[in-house]
């Protein structure tokens, strides 16, 4: 074989490996989400359940570019796939939805509000837009210490979240500091029930990039290969010192806002639009057509995912709930400065 052929084959291998790795996270994300939905319907989950259905390719493709332990990641409410790709354990995810005291949030916070900030996964607060500047701060800290190297930070946000003042302030400030911040906007056409037309008036949110002086990218977020490509490029640009990268992916939320919502506002016209494809189905087709995995292998993968998800939720369900009596009701790290109750 010529050198060129080897290169092509190895880059094809790399592409296939990336695709399969990301697809694996998409699958785990979907299976986990489906499990959550059924637990929710069975009344086993207290509080909201928000799914990433339709957003898995976009979510996983971003996280696939990130290096757990080195990069900073601020996933949002529809990033089960990305969290999986960034190395979150299914058990920790299940624990948070099911209120296990052993989970990372110890029952103090729930569902999507989970993370491990000191190890690079921020734990979102609900106020949309608020996480972006926190990612910037983490990057700035590293730069100040001379430890930024080629780290990036990635922050996820929805179409609706771009309307927040917090989003604007953070993107602008990151641009001024030229921080390696990748902002992944998942435009799933709706913010809860509110369609794009009532959320913003530009044609494509990527048009905001120029106004911030950052680089912009758009992608068909139903297409995993395209997502992998756009994030590979954007993350590489950020790592190389080209400042913030604004990526906008187009897709349709294939679920309600939360599982309590049957989304009557999503019409047939939306469901027939090009952005309405199911990225998981499309990615699976690609795998089959490319001969990367056989139907049998795919079925095994599905079974494995199902088993792991079932195991995680079963374990989490058996774990103890938090005990108010042994709980520390002290919000401060500096416990001796706390008012009211002492540590138990």
């Amino acid at each position, binding site marked *: 074989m010529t050198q060129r052929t080897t290169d092509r084959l190895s880059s094809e291998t790399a592409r296939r490996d990336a695709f399969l790795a990301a697809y694996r996270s998409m699958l785990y994300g979907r299976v986990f989400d489906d499990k959550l939905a059924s637990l929710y319907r069975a009344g086993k989950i207290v509080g909201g359940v928000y799914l990433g259905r339709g957003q898995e390719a976009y979510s996983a493709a971003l996280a696939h570019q990130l290096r757990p332990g080195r990069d900073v990641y601020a996933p949002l409410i529809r990033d089960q796939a990305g969290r999986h790709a960034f190395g979150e354990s299914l058990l920790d995810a299940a624990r948070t939805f099911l209120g296990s005291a052993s989970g990372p949030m110890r029952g103090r916070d729930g569902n999507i509000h989970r993370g491990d900030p000191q190890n690079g996964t921020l734990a979102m607060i*609900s106020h949309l837009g608020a996480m972006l500047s926190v990612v910037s701060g983490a990057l700035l800290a590293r730069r100040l210490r001379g430890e930024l190297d080629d780290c990036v930070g990635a922050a996820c946000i929805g179409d609706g979240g771009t309307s927040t003042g917090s989003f604007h302030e953070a993107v602008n400030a990151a641009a001024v500091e030229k921080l390696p911040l990748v902002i992944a906007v998942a435009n799933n056409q709706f913010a809860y*029930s509110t369609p794009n037309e009532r959320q913003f008036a530009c044609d494509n949110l990527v048009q905001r990039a120029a106004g911030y002086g950052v680089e912009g990218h758009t992608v068909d977020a139903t297409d995993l290969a395209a997502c992998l490509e756009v994030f590979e490029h954007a993350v590489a640009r950020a790592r190389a010192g080209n400042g913030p990268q604004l990526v906008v992916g187009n897709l349709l939320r294939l679920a309600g806002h939360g599982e309590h919502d049957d989304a009557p506002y999503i019409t047939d016209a939306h469901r027939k639009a090009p952005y309405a494809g199911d990225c998981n189905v499309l990615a699976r087709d690609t795998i089959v057509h490319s001969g990367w995995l056989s139907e049998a292998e795919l079925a095994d993968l599905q079974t494995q995912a199902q088993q792991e998800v079932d195991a995680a939720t079963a374990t989490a369900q058996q774990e103890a709930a*938090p005990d108010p009596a042994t709980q520390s009701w002290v919000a401060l790290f500096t416990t001796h400065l706390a008012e009211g*109750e002492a540590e138990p």
Partner: protein
Amino acid sequence: MSITYLEAIREAQDRALAEDPAVFIYGQDVAEFGGAFKATRGLCDKYPGRVMNAPISEDAMVGTAIGAAIEGMRPIVEMQFADFSSVGLNQIINQAATLHWRTGTPCPITVRLPSGGTPGSGPFHSQSMEALYAHYPGIIVLCPATVEDAYGMLLEAVAIDDPVIFCEHKYLYYHLKAEQLPDESLPVGRARIARAGQHATVVAYSAMVHEALLAADQLRQDGYEIEVIDLRSVKPLDTDSVLASVARTGRLLAVGEAFPWGGATAEVVSRVASEGFHLLDAPPQRLNAKDTPIPYHPNLWSVHRPTAGSIAAALHDLLRL
């Protein structure tokens, strides 16, 4: 017929829209969808163009309402959850609240805050923010505890020529029912005796009124008659009614679901201590939520906020003082 607290809020908005063309509603998902809690269900169809979806922009939502109010409109802003009003707080405390004193222009906006805890809602969908708004001059802060007040006070809120923060309690939305809507109600600024008693006074508001009533039931079994005052409005705060009650009972427990530092319970206790010191037969007491974020898990949540049980315990302590 039976009507819930949430339906009362919807009915009040319906009536306000019907009676005054200056009224309109602005908030996230309030139009066709009827709002996250369905408090505006059907209103968009019934009043075309007057129930409008806003982008996720609480600052702009409130600013827009203020501008419309300057022009004589009476906007109702729905925050999706009270907790998100923190992002619109600046427009409320600095723009709306100062407008009349600075310029003589009235600012009749009503900001509805779906407030308070419910199981599983966690730190950012459970807050009671009345203390932040009541601290600032130029704002009226209402906290209805009953279906009747949810209706009557919301109608009044819209009619008042000042900014009103309307703290409606999510825990009461579905559970609280009344047979019918009232024709009349106590005016804003007046507290209500929710239950008459003679051994101690509990001053509460919003969902805590119901916990206090349950606690009073428990104490009745021990022979104590507890008076429960429903403040209804935390600013203005009806000190006279509170003092009159303490004059009857000699004992005061102020109960609030908000965080413990400052807030309505501190205001109630300190007013009674200042103005009604000699009416007190025992030290006045407070019961608030714990001084941590509001926990997600129902086990933790039910201990975090005051409940009938903890109020009863506090009352027993108070009666022994």
